[in-house]
């Protein structure tokens, strides 16, 4: 919303208050000033001239030669490109030597053989808004030739405000003036709402409101003898300053009052309200199915029982609080009006506004819970101005709705305010800022009774009062402290969170951390390898696009997209990991949100390299599990959708499947437009890793020497080492400390269908040196197991 500094100055003394200072005070107290723009500053050099002659410049289609006069001076010739000039027009004339506020120096210029004596200006050239449709034509009501333009447009500043959604009271100059009055501690001058006595003659009006919940207050006032002549200059100037066009005296006045006191008004042409009866019956009721109304904006809108309408003789005349009807609109010939000053239910207006996809200045005020008390002030202010400036006579009026409850007093102890804010405030220090806000403060023993301004619907409790005191005093006055710790954090807080442990492990292993949106394209994710098997995706009911239409079930499609992104930008070696929640549907129940980590290792390399990268990935998984308290892991070869037929394994820890690891199948890599072999893993961490428990068990290091034996065997080419080693461990050989593979031979010297393993056995007796015979016995035992398990032969 825009407000004018000059306009505000009528309601609160801003003498000596720079716009930047006022803007800062407003911003810090909650009404953020986004921008301050000078309006009509530096117009003292521009003069009002009268066009006394006008002709086309010979040989030009769009240039005119105007004779411009000021009293007591020879008329001068000015060339102008605008086509809205006419003889008798009063125009802003920047004579040679003038510098315009937008930074342009005006000189004498020769155009098509004619000397042009300066320039006739459009509004934007004068810093009066952004309009550039033609020369600014001044009304003879406001200006006369020879007058400096700053008499018509005194210097002003316009504030662009971002009003908080609970502060409907600030959507007006009066409201902002109330704030400044409190912030600056200067008295508030309320707008003049005095009005004459009613004339008893003429038509009368009756108001029927079906539900006071829908419409707490409806004031109808008849004004006769009103002339739809232009509103006074100060009103049009102020409306122009805040970017409002002039739409005729009556509508301008209604707009002016809305921007001044904050109450939306509607004016009906009394004689166009049907049926024209002696007593006009105005009603506020719900719309009916099948009803419609042709609105002021030329659109016909369907009504329904959810929509509030204003009726005359039961015929809809306006969508309440939103937009008036075309049939009863005020026109140039209007001489009698019915003024509406009402308040409508904010929630109903919000939903109507949303359904009709229409938002107006009026509706945006009502839907923020405008105070119903404003209606009276709005009506009276309009009446005051209309009587004074448009020659109106006040006729009969009527009211509908429920009697307005006065603002309720809030009981609160100054001590409570102090303890919320963390400041030691005396009763006086609490009462003062509240009184400055036009709140009534009464002492009641150790407590006080505070009645907020009736225009403030947002202040209802003691904490609301604390906020008012705090923001008017200024939060810079509150001393910063730290809350004392009364109780130590729970011991679980000391454990390193799983997410941090996993992130550190992956980074240490050379993988960089990625983050993706959790919204995916279902089609694309279905291509990618996932730990979860076939499960329908959770879909958004209102997605932005199909690309972001589903919730992710895994993390690998995101990493594959990132791999493609990097490769397309010349990064051939991509190692990324991502952690985060994924979403698994469970019918009507709360969806499951497993916490996952996925890793991706891509190099555009030879096939052998794929294997070593895959093995490094598996080593990382095993160590992550060990360090994270997840125990030993076992890799079980498997065929898995979207992974290489023979390069995929499930990751088991204990009796639980925790993840998958493998090489992405070539067609899948192709589908993601990724070149080279892509090694990936996806693991579910929650329920598996439990870092930070009490220390595990360790033992003193042995002092006796180890007996190290190597055992070379020939096995079938597809023999699996994992189960073979498990079988050896299961044997429970005494003193066997370690068995590990140290070599794999894949050449053909062993004969067709065979490969070679060399295993290293390390045996150790805790008290003595083992003998060669004991070593041989162990070697034989291992060999026997390998024979049984995988058909191994010694070599």
């Amino acid at each position, binding site marked *: 919303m825009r407000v004018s500094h000059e306009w505000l100055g009528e309601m609160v003394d801003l003498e000596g208050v720079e716009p930047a200072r006022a803007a800062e005070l407003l911003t*810090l107290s909650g009404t953020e000033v986004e921008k301050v723009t000078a309006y009509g500053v530096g117009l003292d050099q521009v003069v009002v001239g009268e066009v006394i002659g006008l002709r086309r410049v010979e040989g030009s289609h769009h240039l005119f030669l105007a004779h411009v006069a000021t009293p007591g001076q020879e008329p001068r010739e000015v060339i102008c490109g605008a086509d809205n000039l006419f003889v008798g027009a009063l125009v802003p004339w920047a004579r040679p030597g003038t510098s315009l506020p937008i930074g342009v120096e005006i000189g004498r210029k020769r155009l098509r053989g004619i000397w042009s004596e300066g320039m006739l200006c459009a509004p934007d050239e004068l810093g009066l808004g952004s309009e550039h449709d033609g020369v600014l034509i001044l009304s003879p009501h406001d200006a006369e030739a020879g007058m400096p333009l700053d008499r018509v447009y005194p210097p002003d500043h316009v504030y662009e405000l971002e009003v908080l959604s609970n502060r409907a009271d600030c959507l007006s100059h009066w409201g902002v003036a109330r704030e400044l009055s409190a912030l600056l501690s200067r008295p508030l001058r309320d707008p003049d709402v005095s009005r004459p006595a009613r004339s008893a003659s003429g038509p009368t009006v009756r108001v029927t409101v079906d539900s006071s919940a829908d419409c707490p207050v409806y004031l109808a006032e008849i004004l006769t003898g009103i002339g739809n002549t232009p509103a006074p200059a100060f009103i049009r100037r102020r409306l122009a300053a805040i970017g409002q066009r002039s739409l005729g005296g009556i509508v301008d006045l209604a707009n002016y009052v809305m921007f001044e006191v904050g109450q939306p008004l509607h004016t009906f042409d009394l004689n166009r309200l049907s049926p024209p009866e002696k007593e006009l019956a105005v009603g506020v009721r719900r719309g009916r199915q099948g009803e419609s109304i042709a609105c002021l904006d030329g659109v016909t809108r369907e009504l329904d029982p959810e929509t509030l309408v204003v009726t005359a003789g039961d015929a809809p005349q306006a969508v309440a609080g939103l937009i008036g009807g075309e049939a009863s609109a005020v026109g140039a010939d209007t001489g009698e009006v019915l003024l509406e000053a009402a308040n409508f239910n904010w929630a109903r207006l919000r939903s109507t506004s949303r359904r009709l996809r229409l938002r107006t200045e009026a509706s945006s005020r009502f839907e923020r819970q405008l105070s119903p008390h404003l209606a009276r002030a709005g009506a009276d202010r309009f009446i005051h101005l209309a009587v004074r400036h448009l020659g109106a006579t006040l006729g009969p009026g009527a009211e509908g709705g429920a009697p307005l409850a006065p603002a309720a007093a809030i009981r609160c102890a100054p001590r409570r305010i102090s303890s919320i804010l963390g400041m030691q405030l005396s009763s006086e220090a609490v009462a003062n800022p509240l009184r400055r806000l036009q709140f009534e403060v009464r002492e009641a023993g150790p407590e006080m009774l505070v009645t907020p301004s009736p225009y403030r619907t947002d202040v209802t409790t003691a904490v609301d009062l604390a906020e008012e005191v705090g923001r008017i005093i200024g*939060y810079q006055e509150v001393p*910063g402290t730290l809350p004392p710790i009364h109780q130590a954090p729970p011991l679980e807080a000391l454990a390193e969170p799983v997410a941090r442990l996993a992130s550190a492990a992956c980074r240490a292993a050379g993988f960089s*951390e*990625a*983050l*993706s*949106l959790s919204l995916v394209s279902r089609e694309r994710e279905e291509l990618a390898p996932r730990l979860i098997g076939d499960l329908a995706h959770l879909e958004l009911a209102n997605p932005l696009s199909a690309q972001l239409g589903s919730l992710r079930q895994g993390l690998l499609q995101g990493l594959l997209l990132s791999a493609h992104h990097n490769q397309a*930008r010349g990064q051939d070696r991509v190692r990324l990991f991502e952690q985060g929640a994924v979403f698994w549907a469970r019918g009507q129940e709360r969806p499951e949100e497993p916490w996952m980590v996925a890793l991706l290792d891509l190099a555009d390399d030879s096939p052998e390299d794929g294997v070593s990268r895959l093995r490094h990935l598996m080593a990382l998984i095993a160590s992550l599990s060990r360090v994270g308290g997840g125990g030993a892991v076992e890799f079980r070869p498997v065929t898995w959708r979207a992974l290489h037929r023979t390069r995929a394994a499930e990751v088991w820890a204990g009796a639980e499947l925790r993840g998958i690891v493998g090489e992405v199948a070539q067609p899948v890599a192709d589908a993601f437009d990724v070149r080279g072999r892509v090694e990936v893993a996806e693991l579910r961490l929650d329920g598996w890793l439990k870092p930070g428990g009490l220390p595990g068990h360790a033992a003193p290091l042995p002092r006796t020497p180890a007996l190290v034996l190597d055992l070379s065997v020939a096995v079938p080419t597809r023999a699996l080492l994992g189960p073979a080693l498990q079988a050896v461990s299961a044997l429970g050989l005494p003193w066997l400390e370690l068995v590990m593979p140290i070599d794999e031979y894949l050449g053909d010297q062993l004969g067709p269908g065979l490969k070679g393993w060399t295993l290293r056995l390390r045996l150790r007796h805790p008290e003595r040196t083992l003998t060669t015979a004991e070593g041989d016995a162990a070697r034989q035992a291992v060999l026997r197991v390998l024979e049984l398990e995988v058909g191994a032969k010694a070599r």
Partner: protein
Amino acid sequence: MTPVDLQELTAMALEEIARADSLERLDEVRLRYLGRRDGLVTLAGQRLRELAPEERASFGQEFNRASGQLRSALEARQRQLAAGEEEQREDGEWVDMSHPFRGPGQGHSHPVAGLIREIEDIFAFLGYQSVAGPELEDDQHNFQLLNMPPEHPARDSHDTFYLSPPAYGWLYRTHTSPVQMRAMLASPPPLRIIVPGKVARRDNPDPTHTPVFHQVEGLCVDRGVTLGDLKGTLEYAIRALFGRERRVRLRASFFPYTEPSLEADVACAVCQGSGCRTCLQKGWIEILGSGMVHPAVLRNGGVDPESHSGFAFGMGPDRIAVLRYGLSDLRDLYENDLRLLECF
């Protein structure tokens, strides 16, 4: 053989030692003069007993001196030659040590994830525990218990993604605040938690919006917690994040779940407060929203607002990362371009 002969022999030997140009040659010299059986100096020593007793003493002395001198000369020369040979070998193994090798070093942090860890660390110092909550929520926890009934105007800024079918009632949380509620309902005060996590709002991606982004929520509930405590806590955290010298200001605001409500701004680093494009000419950049937990929200969380009070705050690490690292487009944070990640 006289002591004089011995001296000559020694001089010859020293010269040969000096001339030997390999360990092999040097060994030959050693054998010639000090060989156990027929070394020239060894043989000279064996003549000792042929001498008259009065000559023996001086000759013996001379012999010991000569053989000692030779031995140390041999040793020195050997050390010298050995070092030379090692040098040669290493010369043959030359590598270009200026090569800017980019091998598998440590991986890099994501700027947002790194920032979240930093924020967790700062608050861990103040006694806050990092907790998580579900990303899919119901209307109750995301809105109603936080004082945002249906049609509440504050819902306008929370354009929500609903899950299909809407009848099941799930939505993607629009803020991390529902975790406040869950934490209060789960355990009695005192509570000090920090909640990092993903949230979503229905904004089309552009340089300042992504439909999914991160928030870090904080909550402190205890006896006698004041707005001054909130201010002190925020000032500490903001200075820790943006530097001791950075100016901070608190501005009154409105959130349905806090009262009083405050927003915190830091001075724009680009223009130092004079106004520029980054700060939309304001000179300040908004970085977090906060306030004293609304009594109704405390009550909804099972906390008695008569005996306890609390404050809450929420910040956007994505936005803070963009500001802190001088990036220009929030969407870049979710491309995972290694050229960006490798900066962290």
